């Protein structure tokens, strides 16, 4: 492990930032200096100070506290939508790749149809159709992520299914489900882990965009994307601090997962590097 990290310092940097983010999200009630939704108009629109390191917004809410609590929304969207995309996408990919034939044909046409939409356009339409709520944004982002996992899994399964150990398992009478779950899946997890890490970065970015457009988290919940949109109205007064906090938070979170994903790609499978 030590050797891996020394050869790959990015793994350490990305990993540490991700761990810090996780800590912030989990410990939000403990480390947040103020209640993120408590209105205090007497303290509104204050520039950064010792009492409010990132300033306050027009309702006197502490920007730092909102950024800290906002990490909960961003990270849970990351985890849940990647979970949806991973579970559905990988299952489809395993079935399509291993069973082939009609299953493969139908599954891949459905994937093609999903891929026919530009990603954000699809996420926006699904969220708009289900109703603007953070849960629906998670579902939408998860659906948009499905094709990447399906294609990746299917390709890996195709390269595995005629390998000797798989044929051997089939020969001794293992059921297709057992062959896929016990023999193929454990051998293809590396690229999937890389994809899931990079996918988390994409999901956080997508949630921020949806919330920015008013389709994700709803006020007064603290969400980075939504807060940027809400506070943008004070930009013309050069009140920059309200946008700085959430914007930097999005950047850091997306950056950390991208960085970690790239590092994992190099560490887990050097051959994948060129496919990037």
């Amino acid at each position: 492990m030590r050797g891996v990290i020394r050869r790959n310092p990015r793994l350490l940097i990305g990993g540490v930032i991700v761990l810090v983010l996780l800590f912030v999200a989990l410990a939000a009630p403990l480390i947040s200096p103020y209640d993120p939704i408590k209105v205090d108009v007497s303290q509104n629109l204050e520039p950064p100070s010792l009492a409010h390191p990132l300033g306050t917004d027009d309702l006197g809410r502490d920007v730092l506290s909102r950024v800290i609590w906002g990490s909960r929304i961003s990270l849970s969207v990351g985890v849940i939508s990647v979970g949806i995309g991973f579970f559905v996408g990988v299952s489809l990919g395993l079935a399509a790749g291993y069973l082939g034939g009609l299953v493969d044909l139908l599954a891949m046409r459905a994937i093609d149809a999903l891929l026919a939409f530009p990603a954000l356009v699809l996420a926006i339409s699904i969220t708009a159709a289900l109703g603007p709520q953070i849960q629906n944004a998670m579902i939408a982002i998860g659906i948009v992520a499905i094709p990447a996992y399906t294609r990746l899994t299917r390709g890996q399964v195709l390269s595995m299914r005629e390998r000797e150990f798989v044929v051997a398992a089939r020969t001794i009478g293992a059921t297709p489900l057992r062959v896929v779950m016990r023999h193929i899946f454990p051998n293809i997890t590396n690229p999937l882990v890389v994809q899931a890490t990079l996918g988390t970065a994409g999901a956080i970015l997508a949630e921020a965009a949806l919330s920015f457009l008013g389709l994700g988290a709803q006020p007064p919940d603290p969400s980075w994307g939504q807060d940027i949109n809400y506070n943008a109205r004070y930009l013309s007064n050069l009140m920059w601090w309200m946008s700085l906090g959430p914007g930097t938070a999005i950047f850091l979170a997306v950056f950390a997962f991208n960085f970690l994903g790239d590092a994992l790609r190099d560490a887990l499978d050097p051959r994948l590097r060129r496919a990037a």
Partner: protein
Amino acid sequence: MTQYILRRLLLMVPVAFLVTVIVFTLIRLSPGDPVLVFAGEERDPEALDALRHQYGLDQPMPVQFVVWLEHAVQGDLGRSLRTRQPVLEAITERLPKTIELGGTAILISITVALVVGTAAALNRNSALDLFATGFTLAGVSLPNFYLGIILILLFALALRIFPPGGYADFASEPFDNLKRLVLPAVTLATASLAVNMRQVRSSLLDVLSQEYLRTARAKGLGERAVIVGHAMKNGLIPVVTIFGLQVGAILDGAIITETIFFWPGVGRLAVDSISGRDYPVVQAIVLMSALSFMVSTLAVDILYAWLDPRISYTRRAT
């Protein structure tokens, strides 16, 4: 080749059909009764039923779908619920503005990516290379609405070099039009620029170490001829794919960028229509962006097969 193109076109038909089903279903899933929006102040149940009947909304879903598809194929995408303007007209009116913004952004992105990406690959580990790599990392992680806001704050509000947003007609005020174009175009270009620069750099690095370049140098070709005529010619084939896909997905970035900069294009129309529950408009924009994305993907594949003779296009794995 002709056979390959025909095959791909044929394969597109079922996918395009599925796309229309998805678009139709999504819109019908949407909360809120479109008749209520359409009827304005009218709340008399009988009048509402009449309206529902008039627009075929009392028919079963599959029937509605077929009717909608029939009209859509003929270019009739209905009327906007808010302005009563034909949807197609509303979109084509704004399309040139989106193309102006998107085209400029792509042009910036491709030019800078080619120049800086090539320079970075040729001077590996130089200061420029480090800068390019750093920019790439930052560029893909920076949400474009945040970048847009930073640019507005810096260049429009603090330094007052460019206007913070809005649109001016090119025909009557060409200079103002260009001034308003700069910030949104740079914003829209940045994310794709990061991806493109990385691709140009890594594709070139891949070919730079290959034997045929040594041969080219050995036969006495100048460095310029080696790089431009030999390395770039092969190395940039994968780059074409990325560029092409970005052209197809231009609306994706334009939605956010147009919203921040009050640029009255198709992206902004989409956002306004979603918040105004103007379903026919949303439906048409989503459908058109999906179809144009499909066509550009196909164009990229064909171009790719044509550019790179190593790709066999007779039997393509799907």
